[in-house]
């Protein structure tokens, strides 16, 4: 079979506009001008009020407490061979050229990591984080602090290549901020350092993100960060995002995640997508996931797995709403309420007779127009549903959709009972070559 030319991927075209946005500090010019580079601050002198050097800045400690701009809680100062912690209350001023302490008497304690705190230079700079506005994974080449209403706070992350060059250059370049491409910290979802867990509830905008954007992020993040993001997301949101991931990255994600979590995620996916994901795993991993799942879900997926892939049975989802003809429109609407979170996967309800055989499908549009007391059997009539049986190969399914210009097909068994549906978008997925986006170029990958 001739290889299909690759489809143009949507690239930057599909950036969704987000209208709801929190207030951004960096928009404030006074703040932008008072930026202090964290990378530049490291190695600068710490002086007591009389101007005598007492040590050098080794790191900056900030508290992750869910505030959009984390406050600085102290400095790690290298004094001789010690790494001492200086509380922010003892600091009079942080400037490009160094730190001035507020009292001559220093209350020194050896530095130890505290719960909910991060060392910025060691744990955050050079590590992965998510820019939720740009929907991309970045690595901060520098972080910027600013004094906001008397408190030093982390206000931005720098992703410029220029900034990397500055840090590579001589020491006197390093302290000077080059905010060429700064992202406001409110738009950043950071990840915890080693040993620190759950530093901050996920950025609110992550929750509003489209599943396919989340999928992009999950694909691009490293293993630890990906796991952290996955843990922070609502399981159903995560399962929706997983449906949008490329097969190979999804396989990797499911192998990496703890089996219980992976099983819950797969169970939360659309049955057809879940089956696809399971098929791509090896026997052992697949059995493990199915066993970790609620028996009901496992049974449903197992029965779907029995259909060979590339046939209507392998492609269909078992998610469908079947009703008897004697129900009224109002009753059906009530039933549909249970499917509110699956609204993009349902375009019609199936009307069956007493034996469960398919009579017709009634589209949501028809239901919307009909009066609440109308009985469903009175809505039966053309256009009739397009039906295939479970063994029909993919190309017949495609042909059926093209011929009938319909958006979905009903899959029936030998006796004419509906066993599943195929949506046009699932067929599109099956036809488009799956090109991993962020994949290490392996041989034969």
């Amino acid at each position: 079979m001739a290889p299909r030319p690759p489809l143009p991927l949507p690239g930057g075209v599909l950036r969704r506009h987000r209208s709801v946005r929190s207030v951004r500090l960096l928009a404030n010019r006074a703040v932008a001008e008072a930026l202090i580079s964290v990378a530049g601050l490291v190695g600068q002198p710490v002086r007591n009020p009389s101007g005598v050097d007492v040590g050098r800045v080794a790191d900056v400690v900030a508290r992750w407490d869910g505030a959009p701009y984390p406050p600085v809680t102290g400095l790690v100062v290298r004094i001789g061979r010690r790494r001492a912690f200086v509380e922010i209350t003892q600091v009079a001023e942080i400037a490009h050229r160094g730190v001035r302490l507020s009292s001559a008497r220093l209350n020194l304690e050896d530095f130890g990591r505290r719960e909910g705190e991060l060392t910025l230079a060691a744990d955050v700079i050079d590590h992965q984080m998510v820019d939720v506005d740009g929907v991309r994974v970045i690595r901060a080449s520098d972080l910027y602090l600013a004094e906001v209403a008397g408190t030093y706070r982390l206000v931005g992350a720098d992703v410029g290549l220029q900034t990397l060059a500055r840090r590579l250059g001589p020491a006197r370049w390093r302290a000077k901020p080059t905010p060429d491409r700064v992202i406001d910290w409110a738009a950043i979802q950071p990840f915890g350092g080693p040993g620190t867990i759950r530093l901050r509830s996920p950025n609110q905008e992550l929750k509003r993100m489209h599943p396919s954007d989340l999928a992009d992020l999950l694909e691009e993040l490293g293993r630890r960060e990906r796991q952290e993001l996955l843990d922070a997301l609502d399981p159903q949101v995560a399962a929706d995002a997983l449906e949008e991931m490329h097969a190979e990255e999804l396989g990797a994600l499911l192998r990496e995640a703890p089996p219980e979590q992976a099983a819950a995620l797969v169970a939360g996916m659309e049955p057809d997508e879940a089956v696809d994901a399971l098929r791509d795993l090896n026997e052992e991993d697949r059995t493990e996931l199915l066993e970790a799942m609620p028996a009901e879900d496992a049974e449903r997926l197992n029965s779907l797995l029995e259909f060979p892939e590339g046939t209507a049975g392998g492609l269909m989802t078992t998610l469908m709403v079947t009703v008897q003809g004697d129900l009224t429109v109002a009753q059906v609407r009530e039933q549909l309420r249970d499917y509110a979170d699956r609204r993009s996967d349902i375009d019609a309800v199936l009307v069956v007779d007493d034996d469960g055989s398919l009579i017709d499908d009634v589209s949501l549009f028809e239901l919307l127009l009909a009066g609440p007391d109308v009985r469903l059997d009175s809505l039966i009539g053309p256009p009739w549903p397009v039906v295939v049986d479970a063994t029909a190969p993919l190309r017949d399914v495609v042909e059926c959709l093209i011929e009938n210009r319909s958006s979905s097909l009903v899959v029936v068994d030998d006796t004419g009972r509906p066993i599943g549906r195929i949506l046009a978008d699932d067929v599109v997925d099956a036809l488009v070559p799956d090109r991993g986006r962020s994949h290490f170029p392996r041989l034969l990958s």
Partner: protein
Amino acid sequence: MTAGKVPEVDVTAPGAPTRRRRRLVVLLAVFGPGLIAANAGNDAGGVLTYASAGAQFAYRTLFAMVLVTIGLVVVQEMSARLGAYTGEGLVSLIREQFPLRVAAFAVTCLVVANIGLVVSEFAGIGAALELFGISRYLSVPLAAVGIWAAVVLGSYRYVERVFLLLSFVFVAYPIAAALGHPDWTKVATQTALPHFVASHDFLLLVVALIGTTITPYMQLYQAAAVADKGNGPTDYPSVRIDAVAGAIFADLVSMCIIVATAAAIGGHGQLASAKEAATALRPAAGANAEHLFAIGLLGASALAAAVVPLSTAYAIAEAVGVERSVSRKFSEAPLFLGLFSAQVAIGAAIALAPGNLVQLLINMQILNGVITPVILTFILVMANRRSLLGDAVNSPRFRLVGTTCVVVIAAMATLVVVETARTWLGLGS
């Protein structure tokens, strides 16, 4: 309601290529990343360096190859462990674990070593096609443009299979080694007994052998491929077997190349051309040896000429934290596509420099051999960090073995650098 009738129209196009492809990948995954990574050492540079060893010193480098194999096993195991336990590639790890300047030094070394590799791949393409009577001034630029276009336009994955198939020609080496009547007693004794030749050429060749066998690129590939497949600590036992077995298997093939060449033209002095190297395949292929060799060399070279610059660019783009995908426009992924293009362009350009292609190729392996200890040091330091690997950290005994390997390799590399510098300055022989 219409009957459940399926139209009989013949649609020619839409099968399920993705599915079928995935099946193939699953099948080929039996050759795990370890096997593929280690066998990447048997590329154009590898084959010609091993052939050169056989031609110049007959069986005398075999003992050195045993030591190199031990080194390779140790290093590939550490790389695979880093990949499995952190889920990250080496370059990203280096950026997170070391100060930026130190990391930049490591990345620079890696890029230089990999450009050296790309040069030798294009030299390999040139040498292979010269055997068919095509000038390298024609073949190398065409190959560079072709490979670049195939990767950027996205059709490389299909071409790749053809090249891989071509490179399987080199399985003829073990057969040739068996049929070529080598002096088996000599092979056995010089493999088992410590054996060195105290000469500058021998030292250079051993460093070239190290460079081509323990290429920095292979460690990069090993760690990234393990991490990328989602292999974690629970899968590590099988990952370790794959990495170790891959390294040993690859070196057995390498030693077959040395033996086959030694049996055919051993002791005749330096390898002058690819044509000479091809005579080693005569016992297996008869009069077709030359063309068979050319086909294998072309396949192996072209395969690596795309994968090496591509994965280097990927690893660096990932560590910098910018867009990395061949399906992006240049303006969207300037660093990634720029790095890839620059490596191909520089590699092809240097391969066009006048002079002996085989010698250029071996010099590039020496360059790799000099850089190898730098990258190994980074790997060793990271594999020694409990904060990074937890309980999978190097045990004290392993640490000793690893350190010894790095120190020995570093000592030889330093010797080569010092010797070369002396020659340049006109001080030594």
